[in-house]
């Protein structure tokens, strides 16, 4: 049975249950790896939970000068290896989702490892176990398709010209297509008049 992680910010109620439960995890007791923030509290109660998306080609690992960040065979990107991590913060700055946290007390980058101690033995991660709104869900693709007929699971994200595919899925409304709005592609080519700084990258 292939269990997958699904995030649906539309369901989030900002209760911080995931944050509280994350700090109960046996591999990093007392420290939560989840980011949960209001988008703009003065005008809305919307909150967004961010767990590691577990990229297929993790940017954090790609930029690590010490080769400290490893991805397991089953696609889980782990906290930096303590003997290798030099606490340089490259990963913290590079991650497009803003996931890794520098724990300056231990000079170590720590991040969500999808509760590897639990998921590797068939248990749900702590956050997706307790989440009372189903904003964080761990189960099979068949389950999520049956339970959430109005939503679809996406795992491809574009950050500028970088396209990232992830192990973790983001739930979005089914009837909306993915838009990629770009100034240059919407302009007359002849009128652009500037070279592309990334064309040789």
């Amino acid at each position: 049975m292939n269990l997958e992680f699904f995030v649906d910010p539309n369901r989030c109620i900002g209760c911080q249950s995931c944050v509280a439960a994350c700090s109960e995890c046996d591999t990093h007791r007392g420290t939560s790896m989840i980011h949960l923030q209001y988008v703009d509290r003065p005008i809305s109660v919307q909150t967004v939970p961010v767990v590691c998306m577990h990229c297929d080609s993790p940017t954090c690992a790609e930029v690590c000068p010490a080769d400290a960040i490893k991805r397991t065979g089953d696609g889980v990107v782990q906290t930096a290896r303590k003997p290798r991590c030099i606490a340089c913060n490259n990963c913290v700055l590079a991650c497009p989702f803003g996931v890794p946290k520098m724990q300056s007390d231990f000079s170590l980058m720590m991040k969500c490892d999808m509760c590897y101690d639990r998921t590797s033995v068939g248990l749900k991660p702590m956050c997706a176990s307790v989440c009372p709104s189903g904003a964080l869900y761990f189960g099979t693709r068949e389950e999520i398709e049956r339970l959430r007929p109005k939503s679809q699971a996406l795992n491809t994200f574009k950050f500028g010209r970088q396209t990232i595919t992830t192990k973790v899925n983001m739930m979005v409304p089914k009837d909306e297509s993915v838009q990629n709005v770009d100034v240059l592609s919407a302009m007359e080519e002849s009128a652009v008049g500037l070279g592309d700084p990334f064309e040789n990258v």
Partner: protein
Amino acid sequence: MAKLPRSDDALASAWGPHLNRMEGARADSGAEPDKLVPTHCCFCGQQCGINLKVKDNLVIGFEPRYDFPFNKGMLCPKGVKRYLQGGHPDRLTTALRRDPSADAGFSPMPYGEAVNRVAAEIERVQKTCGPHAFGVLSGASLTTEKAYLMGKFARVCLKTKHIDYNGRLCMVSAGAANKKAFGIDRSANPWDDILEAEVVLIAGSNTAECSPITTNYVWQARENGGKLIVVDPRITPIARTADLFLPVKPGRDVALFNGILHLMIENDWLDHAFIEQHTAGFDAVAEHVQQWTPKRTAEVTGIAEKSIRAAAELWGTAKTSFLMHARGIEHHSHGVENCLSAINLVLASGRIGRPCCAYGTVVGQGNGQGGREHGQKCDQLPGWRDISNPAHREYVAGVWGVKPEELPEAGVDCYEMMRRIDAGEIKGLLSICFNPKVSLPDNAFVTRALEKLEFFAVIDFFLSETAQHADIVLPGSLHEEDEGVVAQVEGRVIKINKAVDPPGDAKQDWRVIQDIARALGRPHGFTFDSPRAIFDELRVASKGGVADYSGITYEKIDAQNGVFWPCPSDDHPGTPRLFEPGSWNPVAKGAGPFYFPDGKARFNVAAYRPPAEDVDDEYPVILTTGRVVSQFLSGTQTRRIGPLVDQYPEPRVEIHPRLAQKYGIADGETVTVESRRGTITLPAQVVTTIRPDTVFIPYHWPGRKAANQLTIAAQDPVSKIPEYKVCAVRLTRGAAR
């Protein structure tokens, strides 16, 4: 003598709240628990299943209880961190006596001596001033066994009529309305009936923060195509994506529901067959709501007319629905009418007693349901029997082995008890599971009343703000130190299991009560050796009543993951859904599904009355109060749990930018809120998610941060619930002068 023995600050430094955090074995990631105890959370009425990890008689953490069907492992942050209330530096482990000469204001004393002192004072007060000069306050976070024992203890051992409980601040408006409309007071449906409902109408429930697990049911209903209507003066997280948000002006719910019924009648969105066959009183209600035209409804409620029309159409034309409400419409001086006007919408639609045709009130306290069924209310005997009904008195007296005439008459509600203390009529008090100094409105009055007591005894596990007034404190038990049953939000009776032993001299509350009875020389009826023995007597005492538990056993609860009452016989599986067509109940005896002799539900005319204290030129802003997700009720437990305090450290005043601008208040700045009863100075949180004529303050804190310094002690004339949700205040920028 119930004045504080030392200053607030001295008491707080000795007794907390101090913050407990993950330390020792709890921080040790390699710690292997000795056992995993399946039980439930100690906080709200959702009663989520949870497994407690226990090592060396300490709860060191939790493991999700995936197999409990209500929450399937889900928890809110209070449930996740609940284990930190055990092994707490503030935990009372000895009996205490008031001692102004001690720095801490209290000195430890031997438990037996303390019990004898309590008994001697009860004896003295009752000998000098009569049996009713001693009162008992109890609570709905107790197990049903304890709640039952408290009612019996007051009536049989103390022979006082004065017992009431903190469910008076919580469930009584819904309870009284349920009894008037249905003849029984319980959520009519299991929560699974939310899932396929076409319309979910949530009125006055900050569901996401106060009953978080219900959120998933509501979101699931929407995935299945259901529409969500939320009635609230604030956009709480459950309202953020609602199909229809009705920002009702606090205190105007009756007008809204009458206005919706008006439109249902006008458009003939009615179930005539159901109204005809299964209800009484429709015509009078129909006539009454004629005056509630959309225009007038909009004027009174402050909701746009088009939204009222849209709500009526959504509700009126649905095939299935779930209407749920909570304290937002119940905490009013007309709380019962608010609930009745909401129930009228359910009855007019005919959508009750069938799958996904549903009504329920979202209970607040852990045993908010079970704690209101078996006799700790001032007018109630076990099995929802009525203390003024001769047949009910006779039955219960028989179970208790006393004469019916020996049972006292009905007493008064807990706030009225405070007034009787203030008037010198009640001179002694025993309190358990209640923190009235923080939780009752108009704190200054409550404090003055407590100070007048000749003798005050408290059973508690922490020295709450109320316990700080006590002459004697007896160390009671935490939730995880005892076993027993509670009834959660759906009316499902579930089992709390013991995980650890009480520390030091602390004892299970039922033992403390029985020790007092023995010291009084009146042990008859108070010699139970276990909660199971109490439960077995409760089953008999409730038999034949509306809340019939006689067929429930601990074993059946385990085997079925809970038993929905009524459960009138050993072979009965329980009753998840009330009022099903053809169902039998002991009142209607087959005449119909509702609990009246003719088997019909009752429409009730709900006349609109404004709040007791409306705004005026002097106090032009409405104050409403409520909860935040990381704290619980008076905070006795949750203000001692570090991570929960970190999440929301102190109260803030929610205020709309338009109102804030009028007073020149910016986000984060200090604002002073003043009512006719008190003043509070807090940081402002400027948000567009609240009506511009209303400010909100959460009520979990004591002393200078207590929202209940401001609130008004106006009460509903029937339910006696206080009006926490509306009073008039004025604002000034900055600290009080």
